[in-house]
């Protein structure tokens, strides 16, 4: 007898969580633009409110369109449950707020998206959640930073801006040794390039705005419970293992052996914080996910061609991409990211901020804006935008030079992209 097999990634990307609509036969997932759902009778209503039946009550808590996306991302990640949020930032906040509170501590990679850094370093401190930032490659620093109050280790699968490859197997084990989960931002890699749960992570979130949506059209986030962390055995998470007064004394870890985190995140976090994804956005992100397995290889293929071009260009000082032998995580990337290291990376041109400005202003295909993961190619010059107030010496402490550019390579003809970059580099050189 041949062993049965699960559907492949490409099939799940199209079908997981979605079947033809039983009422209408609609093949695509319908957009259920409704705030609320009619109860069959009073008992049905009461049982939905008390979580005795599964179903939809109010679209802040759940919605049929959004639920398809949630199940699909859980399936693609190999997890147990997904929760769709209003943005990637909302997903990070929901993930942290579900298991951390005043007096809790987080150990985080210092190679983070600026918005994540802001949340941890400024906003959450105001609410009593303290964070220690560490060099993501310094495992001893991670270990040394862990305190009795630490509730989660957190990093990006590919760090910002140097594409530090997070050592998931080592950090996942370190987290387990200290009875806390490892949560990762997997936005740059998507489940097509990396499935963090297979390598040691326990919780994942995405800015679905980026490659999952893939077209630069909507803002959204997705949080995934891997179902592979034993909250009861940990003993550090009374939020999940002791009665919760906010839901009739519910003990989430008794209700779900494998995913009490997802239960509380929805039943408390979506209910009370309310940063829910709207069903129109869920539909658009679903559209993107359905071609993720086609788009990501092309993103990577184009990125590799551009990396190769840039490494040989005389105006380019350095390129940071983990597939280059000089990148500090070259070997780790070969292990964790054999399909590619994504399509967002940084490089530095020779010259000062003015040269950088000339470069971005002369590009015609690359759009100068603050986003990544679009089908269109994007560029940003940190020294004249996100970090324009930062002095040169402080910039370099962040791994950014005056001529550093971040590219998000899109799906255009790679020869046209290279022509565009050639034009930009020539412009930068002319003024030098």
């Amino acid at each position: 007898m041949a062993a049965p097999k699960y559907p492949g990634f490409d099939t799940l990307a199209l079908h997981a969580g979605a079947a033809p609509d039983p009422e209408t036969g609609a093949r695509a997932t319908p957009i259920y633009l409704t705030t609320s759902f009619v109860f069959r009778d009073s008992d049905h209503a009461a049982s939905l409110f008390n979580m005795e039946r599964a179903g939809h009550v109010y679209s802040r808590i759940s919605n049929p369109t959004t639920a398809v996306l949630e199940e699909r991302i859980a399936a693609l990640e190999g997890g147990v449950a997904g929760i769709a949020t209003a943005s990637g930032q909302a997903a990070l906040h929901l993930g942290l707020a579900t298991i951390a509170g005043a007096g809790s501590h987080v150990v985080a990679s210092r190679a983070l998206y600026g918005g994540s850094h802001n949340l941890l370093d400024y906003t959450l401190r105001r609410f009593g959640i303290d964070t220690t930032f560490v060099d993501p490659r310094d495992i001893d620093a991670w270990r040394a930073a862990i305190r009795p109050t630490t509730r989660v280790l957190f990093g990006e699968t590919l760090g910002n801006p140097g594409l530090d490859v997070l050592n998931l197997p080592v950090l996942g084990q370190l987290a387990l040794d200290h009875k806390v989960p490892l949560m990762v931002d997997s936005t740059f890699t998507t489940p097509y390039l990396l499935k963090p749960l297979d390598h040691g992570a326990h919780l994942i979130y995405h800015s679905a705005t980026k490659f999952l949506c893939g077209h630069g059209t909507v803002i959204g986030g997705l949080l995934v419970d891997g179902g592979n962390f034993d909250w009861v055995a940990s003993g550090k998470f009374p939020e999940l293992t002791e009665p919760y007064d906010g839901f009739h004394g519910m003990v989430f870890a008794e209700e779900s052996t494998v995913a009490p985190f997802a239960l509380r995140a929805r039943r408390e976090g979506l209910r009370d914080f309310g940063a829910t994804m709207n069903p129109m956005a869920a539909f658009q992100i679903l559209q993107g996910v359905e071609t993720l397995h086609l788009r990501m290889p092309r993103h990577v293929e184009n990125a590799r061609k551009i990396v190769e071009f840039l490494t040989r260009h005389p105006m380019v000082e350095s390129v940071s991409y983990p597939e280059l032998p000089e990148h500090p995580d070259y070997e780790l990337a070969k292990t964790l990211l054999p399909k590619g290291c994504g399509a967002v990376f940084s490089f530095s041109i020779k010259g000062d901020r003015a040269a950088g400005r000339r470069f971005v202003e002369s590009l015609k295909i690359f759009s100068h804006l603050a986003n990544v993961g679009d089908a269109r190619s994007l560029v940003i010059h940190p020294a004249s935008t996100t970090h324009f107030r930062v002095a040169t010496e402080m910039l370099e402490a962040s791994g950014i030079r005056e001529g550093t550019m971040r590219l998000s390579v899109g799906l255009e003809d790679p020869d046209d992209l290279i022509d565009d970059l050639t034009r930009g580099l020539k412009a930068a050189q002319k003024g030098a």
Partner: protein
Amino acid sequence: MLLSVNGHDAYAYTGGKSFNPALPTLVFIHGAQHDHSVWILQSRYLAHHGYGVLALDLPGHGRSGGAALESVEAIAAWVIAVLDAAGIAKAALIGHSMGSLVSLEIAGTQPARVTKIALIGTANPMRVSPELLNATRDDEALAQDMVNIWSHSTYAAKPSNPGPGFWIVGENLRLMQRIKPGVMHTDFVACNAYAKGRERAAAVACPALLVLGADDIMAHPKGARELQTDIAGQRTVLVKSCGHALMAEQPDAVLDALKGFLA
């Protein structure tokens, strides 16, 4: 709720409220490589609608201590010991898969302790293919994948379980991965070896309900024919668009069948 049975912890989920032995008692008995959480919606609903609920973790599973028991008869004796420990004279037994055989065994041997039985995803005999049985012994990860794939009839069960956003295929796999190594083989050997089904079925004196998944390939509906013949007055509910993971794929249909039967 934790009881002490045979010197070990015996865990029972009580439906999100304190167990009241004065109410009619329902005992939920899970199947192989599972725990109480497979019953979460049905047991929670019934606990809030007039029943005292004990959704058990069998020995060696979930939060219950001790080693997994090696036969259906031994599990049945343990369930009776749980009733004794809880001070319950009679209960309705609701079993899934292996748990349905346990319910049948108790109903056929100790009718005074049983008010009703509901056998969900049941078959008799409950033969396990040699390939699967060997895999449970030699390669649990493979065996778990086999069972997980064969247990689901769809990759888009709605409204999901225990609620929207849950990917029940991944949920079931993770649950099986939580159970201690070695338990899976013990459970499947117990199912495969149980040979008293017809005898016990003929002795059932209480009302009996069979709930079968129309698309179940782990316990095909045809496998319940002997039980339908042998259990006097049994009722069968065939749930459409449903595999072996009945409580997850069709939670409302299973609950509604139970509600009607238990009322």
